């Protein structure tokens, strides 16, 4: 990455200087205030830049947004965390629970399970109403799951019970994590069979083989190298991750995982979310299932039972953190580093190797009989550590600051939507927020004092104008 050029202080109005005690804003002469919104916009659009810096995994995105104010960047961040809707289990109907985990705790745990479904395919609850005007649950706003597990006396009996239950739920049209794996496997085999005969099939086959391997353990997909290694180590050891530990003198314990959750397709949900389609994240795939099939929900001892029905609804992170589509969404300002006086030889090596690795670089030089010289190579790697200031010479030679209109965003999706889509959705939501007020009638002015109340009705809102001003009563809008 090339070192960033000297930031234009007139467009930002200043820069944050970093000193030993903290950070300080240094004002600079700025441009005059724009005369109206149009000029403000032209000024922004001439400076606005957006680059993608990194996509460490499918669910992560690092991008830089240059030329906007902190209020806009912060609005974007806040909306991504708290106002982009997702689907999550919201109502739990507990028929029977003799397990150790209390009803409340169990329902809370269920609520936190991320569901692999794009929330934009669903409506908000309350949009559809029944004859009496009460909100109605429909296939467009509710996803139904069932959990029906019990624990046998030992592994053998338990497996028998599970098999018996499996045939029962299959006859009822319920879908478990085991079924989705099966259906996707079948689809893959069919595809592989169809494509034989083509020249490019060998490559494709290999690819699908790789994918098949990934399908065996859905949550292992998209993991980093170290995670993959750890998973492989666990898989190759004697301990099986799928079956509970069965040792003598220890009562049998049944582990309930998210794959035991049964999806009960409602209405046309099965045709809209087919089991055979693959694809995690944004898009339709594998029916409607939890994002990970191996999340431990509860543990059961022989004879204990959990029977419940769970309804997933659309909601936003403001209401409950389980609805947040991002694990984290944050931004930081780009560090700007200047070398005021040249740094040579030992001092340069000290700077390059000890302070802020990756930020500076040693280059050979012929100046005044010196060997090497330190230059700034990558300001993005800077963590704003002020350790170098302990060396009085270095402190004099380096100036560190932050560019106030250069934001490095880091968005980490939970997995329901791709991170870039979450950013796009957040922008659309901010737009919608603004549009609410653009639609207001233009002349909202209080009437003369002798008239107490007057009503003005606009198509969007009921605006109540009294002598204290105007207010909108009982306005409904979709967010």
């Amino acid at each position, binding site marked *: 990455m090339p070192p960033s050029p000297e930031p234009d202080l007139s467009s930002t109005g200043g820069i944050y200087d970093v000193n030993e005690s903290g950070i300080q804003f240094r004002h600079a002469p700025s441009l005059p*205030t*724009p*005369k*109206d*919104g*149009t000029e*403000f*916009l032209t000024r*922004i659009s001439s400076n*606005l830049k*957006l*680059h*993608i810096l990194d996509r460490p995994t499918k669910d992560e995105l690092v*991008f830089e947004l240059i030329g*906007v104010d902190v*209020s*806009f960047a*912060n*609005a974007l961040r*806040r*909306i991504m965390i*708290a106002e982009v809707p997702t689907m999550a289990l*919201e*109502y*739990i*109907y507990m028929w029977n629970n003799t397990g150790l985990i209390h009803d*409340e705790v169990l*329902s809370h745990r*269920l*609520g936190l399970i991320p569901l692999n479904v794009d929330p*934009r*395919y669903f409506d908000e609850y309350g949009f559809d109403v029944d004859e009496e005007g009460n909100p109605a649950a429909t296939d467009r706003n509710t996803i139904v799951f069932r959990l029906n597990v019990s624990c046998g006396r030992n592994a053998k009996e338990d497996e028998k019970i599970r098999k018996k239950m499996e045939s029962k739920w299959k006859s009822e049209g319920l879908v478990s994590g085991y079924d989705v794996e099966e259906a996707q496997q079948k689809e893959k085999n069919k595809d592989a069979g169809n494509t034989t005969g083509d020249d490019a099939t060998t490559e494709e086959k290999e690819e699908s083989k790789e994918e098949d391997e990934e399908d065996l353990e859905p949550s292992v997909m998209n993991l980093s190298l170290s995670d993959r290694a750890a998973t492989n180590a666990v898989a190759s050891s004697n301990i099986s991750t799928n079956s509970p530990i069965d040792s003598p003198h220890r009562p049998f314990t049944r582990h309930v995982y998210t794959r035991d959750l049964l999806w009960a397709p409602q209405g046309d949900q099965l045709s809209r979310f087919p089991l055979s389609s693959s694809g995690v994240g*944004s898009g339709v795939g594998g029916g409607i299932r939890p994002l990970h099939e191996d999340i431990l929900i509860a543990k059961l001892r022989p004879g204990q039972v959990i029977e419940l029905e769970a309804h997933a609804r659309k909601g936003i992170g*403001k*209401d409950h953190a*389980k609805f947040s589509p991002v694990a984290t969404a944050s931004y930081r300002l780009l560090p700007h580093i200047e070398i005021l006086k040249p740094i040579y030889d030992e001092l340069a090596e000290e700077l390059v190797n000890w302070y802020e690795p990756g930020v500076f670089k040693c280059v050979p030089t012929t100046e005044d009989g010196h060997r090497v010289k330190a230059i700034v190579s990558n300001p993005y790697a800077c963590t704003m550590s002020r350790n170098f200031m302990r060396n009085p010479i270095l402190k004099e030679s380096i100036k560190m600051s932050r560019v106030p209109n250069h934001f490095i965003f880091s968005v980490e999706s939970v997995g329901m939507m791709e991170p*870039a*889509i979450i950013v*796009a959705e957040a*922008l*659309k939501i*901010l*737009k919608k*927020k*603004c*549009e609410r*007020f*653009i639609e*207001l009638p233009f*002349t*909202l002015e*209080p009437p003369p004092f002798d008239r107490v109340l007057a009503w003005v009705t606009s198509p969007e*809102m009921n*605006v109540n104008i009294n002598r204290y*001003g*105007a*207010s*909108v009563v009982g*306005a409904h809008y979709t*967010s």
Partner: protein
Amino acid sequence: MSVNEVKIRRAPCAFELRGTGPPTSRTFVLGDEDHTLGNALRHVLINDARVDFCGYCVPHPSEPVVHVRVQCRNNTDGGDSSSSMDPDAPSTLTAIEALKEACQTLSDQCDLVLEKLEEVAPEVVEDRIRMDKLAEEDDREMEEEMEEEEEYFDEEE
């Protein structure tokens, strides 16, 4: 049993306009909004030469409202002031006009950023096309249903 018993509180009013006197100065109460919109709007408003003052506050953290105070330059008032003599002086704006214009500006800014995002992230464009197609299909289905209903009623007649 509901997983979260405490629901978001809705504001009693979606929008309220407070203040008397010349229409250039008003306080707006935006219901169901918070710092997200309040601060972003304030920044757009103070970047308008016709607006003298703009500030926002959330009066109480547990109430879902944000107050936005807008004071615009009043050129019609006190005609002998030097600013009104200046031919380049910005024109007068009422507070509500300023608010609506700021909302429009902020919305346009979102469009600008979205455009930039689509330039660098092809998946966003793909996703938009897919969602548009889906919306179209939904509309078509709705129309078909309506037609079927009409036919049904026609038959009954």
